[in-house]
């Protein structure tokens, strides 16, 4: 009994870990001129992690084999952790007292800044893993740049924390793409179908806009198009090993980074935000 009334140690551990980062000083965090763009870009990073983490968590209990069920949950947990870091910093930069939870649970779809790629439905394991691979290859390149070059110490710090996990995500996803691509006839066909389905959503990762340009000028973030070369190298190497064809570059679906989403995001948010919306102000 006494053991139970004592507040959960697991919860405390999670909280302590999140609070551990004593903020390093970073002049950009309070830079008023840069604020709108910086906030927006941090939401892009946070929302990618949030929405992909949400999608990945949908597999929990429904995976094709226990070992994979567990691995997918690990990936989702990592992404939720990244969300807390990016959106936490976004809230600080915004300076209106909103924390990561409020940003995740109380913005509507038009305020979300994630790539369209991450909000697409999971499909089969082929689509899920291919999406993860295509995203991870970009994510890894982006975080690597931030660690090496970002003039914002806070951004570099978050990137350095996240990259350890993302490196594993990329290795794991690459390995599975190769194995399934070069596996059975059916697994090959499903992986190729996943590539063809997702390819038009990859162009958005490399598309710059005015908001990004401001931050590129300040030396905080990479210009999106500069990540393409690394990404393409990773993808083409893996596809070759996986015996998968890289589609011709064609049309790109755009808009996620500016808040124009697919229909899917609205449903994700309806589910995710339900309790916060139905019982405003309650503490959970």
């Amino acid at each position: 009994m006494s053991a139970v009334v004592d507040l959960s140690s697991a919860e405390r551990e999670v909280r302590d870990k999140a609070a551990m980062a004593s903020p390093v000083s970073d002049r950009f965090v309070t830079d008023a001129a840069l604020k709108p763009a910086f906030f927006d870009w941090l939401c892009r990073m946070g929302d990618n992690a949030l929405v992909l983490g949400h999608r990945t968590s949908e597999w929990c209990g429904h995976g094709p084999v226990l070992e994979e069920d567990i691995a997918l949950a690990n990936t989702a947990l990592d992404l939720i952790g990244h969300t807390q870091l990016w959106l936490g910093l976004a809230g600080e930069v915004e300076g209106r007292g909103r924390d990561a939870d409020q940003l995740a649970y109380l913005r509507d779809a038009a305020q979300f800044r994630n790539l369209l790629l991450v909000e697409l439905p999971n499909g089969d394991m082929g689509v899920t893993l291919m999406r993860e691979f295509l995203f991870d290859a970009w994510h890894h390149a982006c975080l690597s740049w931030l660690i090496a070059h970002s003039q914002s110490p806070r951004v570099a710090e978050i990137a350095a924390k996240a990259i350890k996990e993302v490196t594993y995500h990329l290795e794991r996803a690459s390995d599975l793409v190769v194995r399934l691509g070069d596996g059975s006839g059916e697994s090959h066909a499903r992986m190729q179908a996943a590539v063809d389905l997702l390819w038009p959503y990859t162009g958005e990762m490399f598309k710059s806009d005015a908001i990004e340009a401001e931050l590129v000028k300040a030396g905080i973030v990479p210009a999106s198009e500069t990540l393409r070369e690394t990404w393409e190298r990773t993808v083409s190497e893996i596809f070759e090993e996986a015996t998968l064809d890289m589609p011709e570059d064609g049309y790109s679906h755009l808009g996620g980074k500016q808040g124009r989403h697919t229909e899917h995001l609205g449903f994700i948010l309806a589910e995710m935000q339900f309790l916060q919306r139905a019982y405003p102000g309650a503490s959970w």
Partner: protein
Amino acid sequence: MYAQLIKSEGMKSREEMSQEEIAFQERVDRGEKIEPKEWMPEGYRKTLIRQIGQHAHSEIVGQLPEGNWITRAPTLERKAILLAKVQDEAGHGLYLYSAAETLGVSRDELLEKLHSGEMKYSSIFNYPTLNWADMGAVGWLVDGAAIMNQVPLQRTSYGPYSRAMIRICKEESFHQRQGYAVMMKMAFGTPEQKEMAQDALNRFWFPALMMFGPSDKDSVHSAQSMAWKIKINTNDELRQKFVNETVPQAEYLGLTIPDENLVWNEEKQGYDFSEPDWSEFFEVIKGNGPCNRERLGARVKAWTDGAWFRDGLSAYAEKAAARRAAIVAAE
């Protein structure tokens, strides 16, 4: 418990036992662990496969009622905690299947028996999770009831089962507490939250009591399982212990246990309480619980949809091994 209504063997008297059986029983009595491949009575092996298998099935079916709420968890932290907990259940299923496999049955065989309905899982997971407080009630009551059984099972006579239980108990120490922490938030929150908490308790109380299985007087063959130390306490002992520990926890939350007959009995130093409706229990076991169809359906779908994935990876492993062999042959 997670393993209810396990069909065991009739108890043999010492006169009926062979020399091997007597030696085996003496080892168990001395508290020695029985390890895979050592001699064991066929009934011991079969009962263990049924019990560990049912326990493993309960872990993976048990992912579903809570998994239900992962995408609706109200904060990022709650989402992470719940996901970690449900993931642990997958891990526990995995450990238990591994323990069962040391008895000469494969995991895929056990899963087939789950999918065909030949093997069962705990009745509790056929009840729906309807509001967020259910995440609290499941952790507090369902994991709480499970722990009652699992802690003593760490001492069970079969080595691999005992070791799996030790690992599970270590990892589960946070599950019940996180459930109670959710209950505290709800019970001490807004009036609507408190209402959800009470509603969750109302719906989960009797199903939680059913987890311990029918009363000892109706419980078949438990004497043999207890002699073999694959069952450590009787159903009624554990149920009584659970009620005794849970009632003050509910009082602390300011919630009412939905049983008018619940009263402290000074003489037995425990609570008197109403028996659950055992006809409901047997209906749920038979497949007529509110969620039987959905739960088993979800497991079968995951397995069937995943076949190409598992086969694709097997195909790659075979190709890769053949390539390696060809390189070695060429050298």
